[in-house]
């Protein structure tokens, strides 16, 4: 169990106190803190609960689920809702800061979850753009992928195809976000974007409108 979690266990409300959060012990560099925990899992996608309220990884970010063969997934949906399925939060007409002072318990009744699209895994040979043999286990921790890991996994264009092939995801938006992350992980290398753009053009079957819109948004 990481230090952050220990800390949180000792002070259950600590994470909601803004100024307090600043003194959260910094996780050691060698092992960054996890960002979530798997609560629902299938071969093609998984749902994880974020460690912090509103603390899910960004849309389109590559995450890794620790496993024998770590699973690579792309965050495609983040949602925050009430713990109780039957109780919806109600509007109070106050700012978040005011609410945190007056009714801190209501934040305790909310949680943030995110959905991620499984696009591959890593084994001893390196990244494999293939669905893993077994889905992630419930309660496995979810970590953000390091830049090197992202760069390595996005070397081939297969993740674009996975995104295009997935149902229920906002395909174009996800392509834009993912490519932006992949690009940032490479330090904004223009040649990479051109190369991926070419692949995308092929995958989109020369849908010129769509391609140009996606490219425009990535390059913004």
């Amino acid at each position, binding site marked *: 169990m990481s230090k952050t979690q220990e800390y949180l266990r000792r002070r259950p409300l600590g994470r909601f106190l803004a100024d307090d959060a600043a003194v959260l012990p910094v996780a050691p560099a060698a092992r960054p803190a996890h960002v979530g925990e798997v609560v629902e899992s299938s071969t093609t996608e998984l749902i994880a609960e974020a460690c912090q309220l509103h603390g899910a990884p960004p849309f389109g970010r590559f995450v890794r689920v620790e496993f024998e063969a770590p699973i690579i997934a792309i965050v495609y949906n983040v949602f925050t809702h009430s713990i109780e399925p039957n109780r919806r939060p109600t509007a109070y007409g106050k700012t978040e800061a005011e609410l945190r002072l007056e009714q801190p318990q209501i934040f305790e009744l909310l949680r943030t979850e995110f959905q991620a699209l499984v696009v591959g895994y890593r084994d001893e040979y390196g990244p494999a753009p293939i669905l893993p043999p077994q889905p992630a286990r419930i309660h496995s921790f979810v970590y953000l992928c390091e830049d090197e890991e992202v760069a390595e996994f996005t070397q081939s264009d297969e993740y674009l195809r996975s995104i295009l092939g997935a149902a229920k995801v906002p395909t174009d938006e996800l392509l834009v976000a993912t490519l932006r992350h992949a690009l940032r992980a490479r330090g904004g290398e*223009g040649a990479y974007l051109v190369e991926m*753009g*070419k692949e995308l*053009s*092929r995958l989109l079957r*020369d849908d010129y409108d769509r391609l*140009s819109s996606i*490219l*425009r948004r990535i390059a913004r």
Partner: protein
Amino acid sequence: MDSRKGTGGKKARRGRRLGVITRGSLVEGLEMKLDPSQNIEDMKAGKFAVIEGEKNDFFSMVTDMRLDAANPEILLHPPALDDELLRQVLSGTSTYNIVSLRPMLMLPKDAAVEEGPRPVKAIPSHFSLVQEAEEEDVARIFGREGDEEGRFFSLGTPLDMETQVCVDMVRFAERSNGIFGKTGTGKSFLTRLALCGLIHFERAVNLIFDMHNEYGFRAMKETGGRGTSFVKGLKQLFGERVAIFSLDPRSTRARGIQPDFEVAISYDQIAVEDIAPLQDELKLNPTAVESAYLVYAIYKEKWLSTLLKLDGPDVEEFAAEIGAHAGSLVALHRKLKRLENFPFMVSRLTEGDAVDRIMEYLDRGINVVLEFGQQTSMLCYLLVANIIARRIHEMYVKKSERYYATQRPEDQPRQLMITIEEAHKFLNPVAAKQTIFGTIAREMRKYYVSLLIVDQRPSGIDDEVLSQIGTRITALLNDEKDIQAVLTGVSGTEGLRSVLASLDSKQQALVIGHAVPMPVVIKTREYGTQFYRELGCLDELGEEERRAKVQKDIKALFGEG
């Protein structure tokens, strides 16, 4: 046997990858999708490429290029000017380039060393890799200068390459050849190069009708307005192996050259056959020639001197005497009077027969340049070239017949190549049937005589003659008719048309035919100091080299010891 050497065995992969074959046919040529990493602007018409099939390498020439798009929508809404990313992404994928290739030769990958390339009878399969040809490929096809036999002579380099393109001089000398091109595209330089090759490798002895005094001694080089410079002529390069004959000795001397022989022509040397081709120049009507034959029937070789001695009024009387049509003979007489104005026309030869001297030189293997000096009128050129060529033709026929009879190697005549400029005047459909040059072009190969036709208007030349031309070296031509004419008698020319029309106006030429295994566009060899040195011109060699060459020559002349 073809001596072009193959390297044999599996070879290392070639350099730049150009693309892959996507479609095509044997008849229409192949299409290659250009690799996105290649710039379409690097694909010039006439460039060399090698298609690596499974069993064969196909040597091909780029003949055409096309821009294409997978989706017409892109063409309706092109990317914005500043949208560099989209342009880059589209290039090579949705918008791509197709390059047409014409396979010219194929070489089996497991070909033995001595096996040469073969004509194309198959095509490579889908997605065969196309690569830029390497020097080794070019050498494998065209040979390399400095081979043991001394067959190959480099005319230049392929486009964008540094290697040599060689012409097989043995095959070149075997047939009649043509050098074509618009004026100012470097015909004279190409001709001079070809002649240097023939003389240097002693593949043929040359008789050059040098209308503009360009080949014998120095000639002016066009420098595009940046002053003038001069290049060496054949006499300077080959010394004793070239003799300059002059029709206009005064002009020749004025240019600082002492001619080896001053040519004069007597009236008795002119036959009616020599007048017939002048119909155009002298504006003779058809009956004039018939009248001339009438005079000839009575006076034989004295016919012309007899006719010209008459004064105007006497001609009609003379006509009545020999039974010719008076008007016609009067016209003939009036027009032939023009011949008297030529300073080289004499009534009696003082220095011996020029043609005999030319033959004597040619027999000794000395090349003859006949300069016309200031006598640059077409009439003069046609007349003199005809008289000399006709006589030489007769002599060569006799020599060849003797050789056929005796079959002794020492009787074998030397291969002779006659260079004529403004060839369409001799070889147009009307004249080709009358002039001796038509005969030479058509059938003289058997008699060891061939022509080197230099012309800027190949469409004016008779088709029958054109189709017999072995090797064509063609600089830029624009006129559709001329292009058509140059490609007459060459198979698979569809793609060459575009190549021919897109040549640079300087220093580029297309070589097609008998002496090269496949058509090739060349950047012509620099005719300058380096070239002189390579030909062993003494002036250009260093002290050491010169001494070594002189020693070698002495040995060659007098034997060892």
